[in-house]
């Protein structure tokens, strides 16, 4: 047991599973020799060789399509897409094949594979390196979608994902890869897919976030507490299948909700959450569900990026709006 940051926790999870299960392997651009541009696969090629820690040609559709073929033949591949902005070329394989092979074969075949993707903004990166595309993934039947917010969860959820019989999209908040350190067991352990985490209890307003936004929401909740607003913060952790009962029962208690995400507002996951809350808790709702999100624009480059990503201040403002409706 030691204090690890999130990249280290992920690396530790991969290492642990590859040691336990010879069918587990990683593949992607620069994941082998280099150990990944973020070092999430560091040391795996040294330990398991170039086949089980495989550098691939630069081709995202190919990487995930190859992973499907490997999974169909007994492997448990963990593919890496280097940055969120390079997910779209892989979507066809994910949407047309990976998510469908089980239903297409009426259960004869499954696709036990994981696709890891560093996602989101806040690192002053070039275009296409700051995207958050969860809504598209959650809209796709036949896959699971996981977004850890802490090192401990990252490792535990990753191991659950690897052991899952179905394909799991594993989105890693690159912005906080090295921001948080916490105790992470060295051995393998699991955190169940499909369960939200209660970060903070409160009675006035329910705050819903995931990935890198959990930390921003937590800061906002602290600021709110100083104004006497007691926010209850939920870290969704899994976006598909979503633990909606967690936030619905919270909203039934608080009567108010604020949902936070980096992606553009329109048709973002915040819409689904708002829709479910009004479906199941309308009688308790004392204000509209407020969405604090990226704008309906492309994520700006470094000089303007901070305007785009929800800040604690914007989240606080939304809570005030919810409280004073």
């Amino acid at each position, binding site marked *: 047991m030691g204090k690890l940051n999130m990249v280290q926790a992920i690396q530790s999870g991969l290492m642990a599973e590859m040691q336990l299960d010879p069918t587990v392997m990683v593949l992607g651009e620069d994941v082998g020799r280099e150990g990944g541009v973020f070092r999430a696969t560091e040391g795996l090629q040294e330990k398991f060789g170039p086949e089980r820690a495989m550098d691939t040609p630069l*081709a995202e559709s190919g990487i995930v399509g190859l992973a499907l073929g490997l999974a169909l033949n007994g492997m448990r591949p963990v593919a890496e897409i280097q940055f969120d902005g390079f997910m779209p070329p892989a979507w066809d*394989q994910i949407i047309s094949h990976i998510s469908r092979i089980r239903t297409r074969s009426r259960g004869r075949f499954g696709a036990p594979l994981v696709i890891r993707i560093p996602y989101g903004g806040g690192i002053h990166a070039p275009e296409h390196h700051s995207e958050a595309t969860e809504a598209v993934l959650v809209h796709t039947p036949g896959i699971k979608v996981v977004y850890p917010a802490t090192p401990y969860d990252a490792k535990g959820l990753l191991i659950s994902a690897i052991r899952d019989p*179905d394909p799991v999209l594993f989105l890693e908040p690159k912005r906080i890869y090295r921001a948080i350190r916490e105790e992470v067991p060295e051995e393998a352990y699991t955190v169940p897919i499909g369960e939200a985490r209660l970060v903070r209890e409160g009675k006035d307003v329910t705050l819903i976030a995931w990935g890198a936004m959990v930390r921003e929401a937590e800061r906002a909740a602290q600021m709110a507490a100083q104004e006497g607003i007691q926010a209850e913060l939920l870290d969704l952790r899994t976006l598909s299948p979503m633990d909606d009962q967690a936030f619905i029962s919270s909203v039934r208690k608080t009567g108010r909700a604020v949902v936070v995400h980096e992606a553009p507002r329109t048709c973002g996951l915040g819409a689904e959450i708002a829709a479910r809350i009004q479906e199941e808790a309308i009688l308790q709702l004392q204000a509209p569900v407020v969405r604090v999100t990226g704008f309906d624009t492309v994520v700006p480059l470094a000089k303007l990026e901070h305007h785009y990503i929800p800040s604690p201040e914007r989240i606080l403002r939304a809570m005030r709006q919810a409280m004073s409706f």
Partner: protein
Amino acid sequence: MKGLFDPSILEGVEMLRILGPEGTMEEELRAPELTDQRIQELYREMVFLRLADQRALNLQRQGRMGTYAPFMGQEAAQVGSAVALGEDDWIFPSFREGAAMYMRGAPMGSIFAYWMGNEAGQRFPEGVRVMPISIPVGTHPLHAVGFALAAKMRKEPICTVSYFGDGGTSKGDFHEAMNMAGVLCAPTIFFCQNNQYAISVPRKIQTASRTIAQKALAYGFPGIQVDGNDLVAVYVATRLARERAISGQGPTLIEAVTYRLGPHTTADDPTRYRSQEEVEAWLPLDPLLRVRKYLEKCCMWDQEMEESVHAFAEEKVNRVVQEAEEFPQPAPEDIFHYTLEKMPPRLEAQLEDYLAFLKEQED
């Protein structure tokens, strides 16, 4: 000029043909295990397949089947390649590979049931090493590469074959699959049935390369252009490619030059884009015809045998249709059950709600 790779470099290479349209055999190129006996057997299968294919078209016209993609004219390409494989090899078909799938053990009744709009027809029995049909053109060779790679990692002496058309070679995923197979030295065969059309789009609008086989050179492995209407040449080329795969030499691209004698699908009217003369020019190259001619030359076939094999095949096709039509009607629950291994609560709720709706409707 130094540094220049000009397409003219490749002009000399001619298509491999062993069994000619007149039934003449280039004996020295023939595979020894492809005995006359075996050719006779395969001819029987080809007759059955052609009849089954035609029946599917008829069923569609009668409203008993949905859209169907016939393979008439491509029997030699599919049968020749399918039977050249080893027992443990896997095939990854696209939508026009009914013949290859059947030869690899997929029940024709299942295949028909699928085209009748029943997903259950794609669940082939355990042991049948045939993947479900992949509709998105050119996207499934990647799966064959990955599958082959897993076998290679475990040192299992098998190979995989992906089937696709001339149109499929234009897709980005085809390129990524070819390139990865080359880099990873994957034991896989890319089997292209160049049937001259992608729906209405003729081969020359699909790509400017003289052959499809030469595309393999872009990926550092060999391509073979073979007469796709020649059962024997297809067999020999596939065998060679399989040898390469199994012995660790990596992938091969095979271009089987053939012609789609029928419509693209039952929804297509080919007279809009090709002339009757063009079709007629291909008729003497019919893959069944030359096998029959050969067998006749060997005194292993005559009109009587032809008639009896037809009668026998008709019977068999009838049973296929019956089997397909007796597939149990799928239940609404089936829409939900295979989305994930375990149904998540939200989906369960959708199912329950829908069943409640159906119940209300009955009342």
